[in-house]
């Protein structure tokens, strides 16, 4: 992250998105550009596909946007470059300060859940950057999604800075500022729109690719057992089926989420898995014998249902109590279905 070896005060490394400096009573603060370059966009695309997702970071500290004065607002952000880019992009035309916390390169929401985006780090960063000598007011605009990690009363007590919770989405910031730090209920709400869900599909598929590959190899090998000896003739079939289930669980479920009946994610997955079973079964694509067919049906359903259950982590509205309750019932059933499916495929091959 940092290759700075100098003794303090350690100037932040020059980054392509820095455009200059502003002088402050405590030294120079780098200015950041508010237009995203091709390089920023490509970086964003890469993390969308889960490439190098864990080290897309920027140096924590204080930055300037536009030509800020001591009266300009202070925006708190995470040091995940994607969060930071959203913010600076939304702040085009605004003069302000950006206080970047060290969240270990994790976005605001997840870091708040872990507590790295939180009261202690805000207080620490306020002190380290000596921002109290730079601005004349005592307000920090903290993204609302950071609230699970932050206690506004505690921050005020420990740092002297009051917390104003900004809107959920950075793009609403100009409106929030224009309305004198007031967010409409709409700006406060977390949604899970079709666009949001489409955006997470690539990552969903990448995350599960390895498991799907492992399962496909295992089932391809097992489906080769037959009375007449061993053959890998069925292997491509096994691969196609497992990866169809993978695609269904990772793309179709997120896409259709609100329209699939049932509240529990595993049940949503079950319905979609059954549809897949019916479609492939009626096209005679599940295998020659009824046993093999049944076996593959169970595998498809359990894979789709399990992936759907795991999609609770990406969704924005499930609670821990809800997911735990769902898991207790769903996971044993999914396991039994998957194991019975495998056994049936083996028996089907032997008959």
């Amino acid at each position, binding site marked *: 992250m940092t290759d700075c070896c100098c003794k303090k005060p350690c100037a932040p490394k020059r980054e392509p998105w820095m455009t200059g400096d502003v002088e402050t009573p405590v030294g120079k603060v780098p200015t950041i550009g508010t237009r995203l370059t091709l390089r920023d966009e490509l970086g964003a695309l890469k993390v969308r596909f889960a490439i190098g997702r864990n080290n897309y970071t920027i140096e924590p500290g204080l930055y300037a946007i536009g030509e800020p004065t001591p009266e300009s607002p202070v925006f708190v952000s995470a040091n995940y470059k994607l969060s930071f880019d959203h913010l600076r992009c939304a702040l085009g035309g605004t003069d302000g300060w950006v206080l970047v916390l060290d969240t270990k390169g994790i976005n605001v929401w997840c870091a708040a859940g872990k507590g790295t985006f939180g009261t202690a780090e805000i207080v620490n960063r306020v002190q380290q950057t000596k921002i109290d000598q730079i601005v004349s007011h005592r307000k920090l605009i903290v993204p609302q999604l950071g609230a699970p990690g932050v206690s506004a009363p505690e921050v005020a007590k420990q740092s002297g800075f009051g917390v104003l919770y900004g809107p959920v989405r950075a793009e609403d910031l100009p409106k929030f500022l224009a309305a004198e730090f007031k967010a409409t209920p709409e700006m406060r709400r977390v949604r899970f729109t079709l666009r949001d869900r489409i955006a997470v599909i690539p990552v969903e598929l990448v995350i599960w690719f390895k498991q799907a590959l492992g399962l496909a190899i295992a089932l391809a090998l097992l489906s080769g057992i037959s009375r007449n000896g061993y053959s890998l003739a069925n292997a491509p079939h096994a691969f196609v089926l497992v990866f169809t289930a993978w695609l269904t669980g990772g793309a179709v479920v997120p896409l259709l989420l609100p329209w699939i009946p049932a509240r529990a994610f595993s049940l949503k997955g079950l319905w979609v898995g059954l549809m897949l079973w019916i479609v492939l079964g009626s096209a005679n694509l599940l295998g020659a014998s009824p046993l093999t067919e049944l076996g593959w049906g169970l595998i498809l359903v359990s894979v789709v249902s399990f992936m759907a259950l795991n999609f609770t982590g990406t969704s924005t509205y499930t*609670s821990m109590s809800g997911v735990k309750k769902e898991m207790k019932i769903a996971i044993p059933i999914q396991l039994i279905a998957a194991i019975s499916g495998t056994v049936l495929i083996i028996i089907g091959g032997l008959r």
Partner: protein
Amino acid sequence: MKHLKNVVTLKLDEEKCIGCGLCSTVCPHEVFSIVDKKAYIIDLDACMECGACAGNCPIGALSVDSGVGCASGIINGLLNGSGECCCDKGGTCA
């Protein structure tokens, strides 16, 4: 979109509440309504147990058993004691 019914652990002590409204400000799912300087839970099932309200309430009138609302986070928690949430990969939480 809502998840399961009647599972959420959120509790509000209406007696204590001073009606500052911070809970309703931080809540991402409009669980609260503030009427006559008192907070009320109007949509309990919408709560995702993020803990924002309880952590920000200045007088501790709220409690919630907060944690990661995702299956792999819970599985990881059971397996190796750290409830790392899969939401690290989430594109929705900017």
